[in-house]
C-alpha cells in the first residue's frame, strides 16, 4: 500500500521547525505554534496507525524510485506504534516546556530544535533504508546536541562534550558498518538486505557487520558497557530536554535494534541474539544499581533509563513473537511512564526549586495530586500491578521462561525489586518526612496536565492493556515473519 501519509511525520516537523526558527523571537508563535504542530503531528500519526491496522504495511517510494534502488519509507505496525508514542511524548513534554522554559532558551531556537529532533526521530521510525537511517539518526543527534547544550551552562557544556564525543564515535562506526554491509550485500534497502542475507550462500559473513551494528545501536540506546555517556549528560540539560531525551532518544536506538535484528540479521541468533541477552542482563543490573546509588531525582531517573532499556533488549533477544510483543509493549509503557516521571520531577522542582532529595521533604502533605501522580508512575515503572509496567514485566518474564532463559529472567526479576527500591527512595525523601524547604511555591494546575495525561496512559494501558497487547502481538508477528514487510516494499518477487 503506497501512501504519502507516511512522509508527513517527517515533513511536518521539518517545515514547522523552519518556520519556528524564523519566528524564534516571538514567544507566542513559538509556544502556540509548536503546540499546534505537535498536536497535528500526533493526529497524523494516529491516523497512520489506523491505516496500517486496516490496510497493512504502508510504504512510500521517495522520489518515485522503485525499491531497492530509491529510498523507501515503510510504516508497519511497529513503526506506527512508535510514531504514535513519539507524538504523545512530543505533545506532553512540549506542554510542560512552554510553561517552564526560560525565555532566553525559547528565543534561541528551542522550539525549532525540538521539531527538528522529532523530524529525526520520526524519520528513523519510518525509513526502510540503512543509510537513510544513519542520516535521520544524525538529524536527531545534531538537534539533540544543540538541545543538550542550549543555554551553555557549565554543567551542560561538560555533559554536552561527553554526550557528543561518545555519540560521534558511534556515528563513525555506523558509517563504517554501512560500508561493510554494502560491500557484502550490494544493497541498502532493509527489505532487500533481509532477502539477501537470508539467501546468501554463507550468511555467517554478515555476522561481522551485525556485531558492529550492535555496538553502534548499543551506544545510541545506552547498553552495557556503552551507556556511561547517558548519566553523564542527561541530568545537566533543562528538564523538558531531559524528559524528551529520556522518553525517546534511547528508544530510537532500541527501535533500530528491534528492526534490524528482527528483519535483517536473523541468520545467527545463537550468537547475535545470545549476545544481546547477555548485554541486556548487565544493562538492566548496572543501570538499576547506579540509580539506587544517587540521591537526586533527575539522576535516579536518568540512570534508570539504562536499566529499562535492558528489559527491551532482553525481549528482542528472545527473538520470538512473545518476546518481541513483550518488548514492544514494554517500550510503549516505558516511554510514557519515564517521561511522566521526569515531568513530575519538574513539578517538584517548581515547588521546591531543587532536584536533590536532601533539599525537599513532606511534599505529600501539601501536594497530594503530585504525590498521587508520582506514586502511580513510580509503581508502574517498578512493575507493580495493575499498571502498565506490570504487564510489560509479566509478558517479558513469561516469554523468557517459556524459552528457558532462566538466568536473564532472574536478573530482570531482581532488577525490578531495585527499581521499586529507588522509586521508594524518591517517595520517602521527597514526599514523606518533615516539610521542606521553608518557602514551598505553588504549582499551577496547568503544569500538572501533561504529567497527568501520561500517567493516565499508564493506568489505561494497565487496566485496558488488552488492546495494546493484541496490537503488540500483531506487530511482533509481523516483525518476525518479515514477509509482509518485504512484500510491501519489494512487491511479489
Amino acid at each position, binding site marked *: 500500500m503506497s501512501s504519502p501519509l507516511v512522509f508527513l511525520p517527517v515533513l511536518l516537523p521539518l517545515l514547522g521547525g523552519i518556520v519556528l526558527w524564523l519566528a524564534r523571537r516571538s514567544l507566542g508563535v513559538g509556544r502556540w505554534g509548536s503546540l499546534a504542530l505537535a498536536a497535528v503531528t500526533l493526529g497524523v500519526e494516529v491516523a497512520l496507525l489506523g491505516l496500517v491496522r486496516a490496510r497493512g504495511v504502508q510504504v512510500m517510494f521517495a522520489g518515485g524510485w522503485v525499491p531497492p534502488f530509491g529510498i523507501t519509507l515503510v510504516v508497519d505496525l511497529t513503526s506506527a506504534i512508535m510514531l504514535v508514542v513519539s507524538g504523545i511524548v512530543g505533545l506532553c513534554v512540549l506542554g510542560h516546556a512552554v510553561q517552564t522554559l526560560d525565555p532566553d532558551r525559547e528565543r534561541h531556537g528551542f522550539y525549532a530544535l525540538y521539531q527538528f529532533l522529532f523530524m529525526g526521530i520520526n524519520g528513523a521510525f519510518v525509513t526502510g533504508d540503512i543509510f537513510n537511517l544513519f542520516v535521520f539518526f544524525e538529524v536527531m543527534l545534531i538537534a539533540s546536541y544543540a538541545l543538550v547544550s542550549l543555554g551553555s551552562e557549565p554543567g551542560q557544556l561538560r555533559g554536552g562534550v561527553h554526550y557528543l564525543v561518545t555519540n560521534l564515535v558511534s556515528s563513525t562506526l555506523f558509517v563504517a558498518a554501512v560500508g561493510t554491509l554494502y560491500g557484502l550485500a550490494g544493497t541498502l534497502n532493509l527489505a532487500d538486505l533481509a532477502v539477501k542475507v537470508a539467501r546468501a550462500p554463507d550468511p555467517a559473513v554478515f555476522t561481522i557487520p551485525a556485531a558492529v551494528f550492535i555496538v553502534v545501536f548499543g551506544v545510541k540506546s545506552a547498553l552495557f558497557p556503552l551507556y556511561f555517556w547517558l548519566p553523564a549528560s542527561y541530568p545537566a540539560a533543562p528538564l523538558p530536554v531531559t524528559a524528551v531525551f529520556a522518553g525517546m532518544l534511547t528508544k530510537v536506538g532500541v527501535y533500530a535494534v528491534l528492526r534490524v535484528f528482527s528483519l535483517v540479521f536473523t541468520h545467527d541468533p545463537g550468537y547475535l541474539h545470545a549476545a544481546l541477552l547477555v548485554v541486556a542482563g548487565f544493562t538492566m543490573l548496572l543501570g538499576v544499581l547506579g540509580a539506587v546509588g544517587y540521591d537526586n531525582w533527575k539522576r535516579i531517573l536518568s540512570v534508570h533509563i539504562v536499566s529499562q532499556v535492558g528489559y527491551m533488549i532482553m525481549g528482542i533477544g528472545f527473538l520470538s513473537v512473545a518476546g518481541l510483543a513483550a518488548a514492544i509493549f514494554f517500550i510503549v509503557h516505558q516511554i510514557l511512564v519515564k517521561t511522566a516521571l521526569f515531568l513530575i520531577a519538574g513539578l517538584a522542582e517548581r515547588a521546591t526549586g531543587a532536584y536533590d532529595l536532601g533539599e525537599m521533604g513532606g511534599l505529600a502533605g501539601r501536594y497530594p495530586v503530585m504525590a498521587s501522580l508520582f506514586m502511580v508512575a513510580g509503581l508502574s515503572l517498578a512493575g507493580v500491578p495493575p499498571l502498565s509496567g506490570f504487564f510489560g514485566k509479566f509478558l517479558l518474564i513469561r516469554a523468557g521462561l517459556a524459552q528457558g532463559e532462566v538466568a536473564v529472567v532472574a536478573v530482570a526479576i531482581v532488577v525490578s525489586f531495585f527499581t521499586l527500591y529507588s522509586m521508594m527512595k524518591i517517595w520517602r525523601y521527597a514526599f*514523606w518526612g518533615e516539610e521542606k524547604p521553608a518557602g514551598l511555591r505553588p504549582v499551577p494546575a496547568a503544569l500538572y496536565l501533561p504529567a497527568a495525561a501520561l500517567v493516565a496512559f499508564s493506568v489505561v494501558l494497565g487496566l485496558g492493556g488488552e488492546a495494546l497487547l493484541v496490537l503488540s502481538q500483531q506487530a511482533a508477528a509481523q516483525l518476525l515473519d518479515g514477509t509482509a514487510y518485504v512484500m510491501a516494499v519489494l512487491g511479489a518477487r
Partner: protein
Amino acid sequence: MAFALGMGLSILAFLALLAGAGPQVLAGRVVAWSVPWMPSAGVNLSLYIDGLAWFFGLLVSGIGALVFTYASAYMHGAERVNRFFWYLLLFMVSMLGLVLSGNLILLFVFWELTTVSSYLLIGFNYERPEARAGAQRSLVVTVVGGLGLLAAFVLVLLATGSLEVADLLADPAALRGHPSYGAILALLAFGAFTKSAQFPFHVWLPGAMEAPTPVSAYLHSATMVKAGVFLLARFLPLLGGTLPWLLVVGLTGVATMLAGAYLALSQRNLKAFLAYTTIGQLGVLTGLLGLGTLPAVVAAMAQTLNHALYKGALFMIAGNVEHGTGTRDLGRLGGLARRGMPRTAATALVVALSMAGLPPLLGFVSKELILEAAFGPGAHGWASAVFVLGLGLNGALNLAAAVVLAWDLFFRRSRVTPPHQPHEPGRAMAAPPAVLAAGVLGFGLAPALAERVLQPAVAAVAARPAGFHLELWHGFTAELAVGLLVIASGLVAYRYLALLVAPARVWPPALQPIGWYEALVGAVERGTRRLNDLVQHRPLRHHLTVVLLAAAGFLWVTLFLHWRVLPWGQWSPVGPEFVVVAAVVVAGALATTLLRTGLGAILSLGVVGYMVSLMYVILQAPDLALTQLLIETLTVVLFVAVFAFLPRAALRWAGSGYGSRGADLAAAGLVGAGAAALALLAVTEPVFPRISDYFVANSLELAGGKNVVNVILVDFRGLDTMGEITVLAIAAAGVFALLRLGKRGSQG
C-alpha cells in the same frame, strides 16, 4: 466519604458472602464467575468462591467493618484522616480481592496492592522516621517475596497452560509431577513466607506497628499476614503432600512458631509484644499447613479463626490502653482493671484466655485440634516429634504471653503510674473488641457453629469432603493430658519470665535477622555509591576507553569465531601513486598524533584530509575529491579560528600527564586492526549484483543526468540529501545558540 464507602462496602461484602454465596458454599458448591481482562495474556477477572475463599472473605469483610468502626473514633481529629480511610479502603478491597480471585495473576495484582496499601498505612505518620523506616522495611521484604510469587505463577502457567484456579484445582496432580515442581514450590513458599512474616522474613512485621492501631488490628488479624497463610492453603492441594513441601513449609513454620513466641516475651512495647505473638501464631498456621494432614488442616482453619478474632481484639485493646493511659510501654502499665478500665479488662480477659487456649473459648477447641494434629498420623514419623515439640513449646510460651497481657496489664497489683489517669474509651472503640471477644466465646460454647463455618474451608483445602467434628469437651484423652502439661509449662515460663528472656535481651543485633536486614540494605546503599564512583564518575577518556575496547573486543571475538569468511589472498594490483598517497596519509595521521604543538597537529590533520581527497581521485571519485578538499579546508579554518580565539592560557597544557599510555595504545591497536579487517571485508565483491548498476543504466534516461553521483544525490537518494542539508542547518542554529547563550549576565 472514604469512611462511608469503606464501612458500607465491608458490611455489604460480608452480607453478600453470608447470604449470597453462603448457601451455595455450605452446600459444597463453588461460586465462580469470570470475564476476560487480558485474555491474550491468560489474565481474566475471575471470581472463585469456594469454602476457603468464603471463610477468608468473611473474616476480611467482617473484621473490616469492625476496624472501620473502631478507626472512626480512633482517628477522630487526626490529620489527613480522609486520606487514611482511602488507604484503609484500598487495603480492605485488595485483601478481599486477593482471597476471592479465581485467576493467579489477578490474585497477584491484589497481593501487590495489599503490599502498597499497607506501605502507605504503615508510613501514614510519615513525619516520624520510625514510620518511614517501618514502611520501607515492610515494602522491601514483601515486594521481594511478591516477585518470587510472580515467577512461581508464570511457571505454573507454563506447566499447566492456565492461570485459572478452577482449572488448576480440577487437575491437582499436574503440578506435583512436573519438572519445575521444585522451583514453583520454592518460589511460592518464599512469597508466602515474606507476606506471613515467617522466620527469617519476619523482620518487617514489628516495624509495621508504626501504622495507626486500627491498621495493626486489621493487618495482624484478617489481612496481609493472613494472605500468605491463604496462599499456602490454596496451594496445599496442588503442591502439598510431598516431602519437599513438608520440609520447606513445615519446618519454616516450626522455626517461626518458636522464634516468634519466644521473642514476644522479651518485648517492652505492648504493640511489639503483640506483633511477635502474631509471628508465633503464623508459624503455627504455616507449620500445620506444612504437615498437611486432614487433622492439621482442620486445626489450621480453626486456629486461623481463633487468631483473627483474638488478635484483632487485642490490638484494639492495645489502642484503647494507649488512648486511656498515653503509653504502650509495658513497664509503665499495670493493674488497669482497678484503675478505671474495668470493661476493657473484661474484654481482654476473655480474648487472652482464648489466646492461651483455655476453655470454654474457641482457643481451647483449636488447641485441642492442634495437639491432635501433632500426634495424628503424619506422612513421616519423625515429623510428628518435631511438631509435637514445636507446637507444645509454642503453646506454653503463648500461654505465658497471654498471662502477661491479661494478668500483668489489668489485674496484678502494680505501683507503676501511666502518664495519664487511665480511662475507658468511647463506645465506638470499646464495642469492636467486645464483639470479637463475644465471637471467641460464642464459637467456644457452640463449636457446632464454628464447625459449620469451617467445614467448607477444610473441604476445599483438603480437596475432599471432610468429615470432622468440633467439640469443646473431648473427654480425658492424651491431648488433654498434653494440653495440661502445656499449661503447666506455660505457667512456669511466666514465673521465670525474666530469666527466660534474658538471652534475647543481650543477643547482639548483628546476629538477628533485623541486623541482617539492616546490614544488607546498608551494603546496597554503600555498594551502589561505590559503584557509581567506580564506573560513572570518571572522565571522558575512561568511558571512551571502555566504549572503544568493548567495540573492538566484540568485533574481534566475532572475527575470531568467523575467521574463515575473511577474504584472503586474491589481491588486486596497486599503483605506485596510491601507495605514495597512502604513505602520506599514514605519516600525516602519525604526525597528528605525535606533534606537540596544537597548530602543527591541526595542520597535519589537514594534510591527511587532502591526501584522502587524492585517494578519492584515484578511486575514480572526482566529485567526492572536490567536496573533501573544500570541507577539509573549512574544517582546518574552523580549527585554527577556535585556536586563535581562545586565550593562550587556556590552551597551555596544564594536565598532569596522560595517564596510562599502555592501555590507550592497546585500544588503538585493537580498534585499528579491527577496522582494517572490516575494510578487507567491505572491499570484497558482493555475492549479489549491486543495486548501483541500475543507477548507471537509468541515470541518463530516467533522471536526465550524466553525472551519476549527482543524480543519486539529488534524485535517487534525494531524501538523504534533504537530511544532510537539515543537519547543516541545525548545526548552524545550534552554533548560533551556543555562542549567544550563557555568557555572563545572560545566564539561562
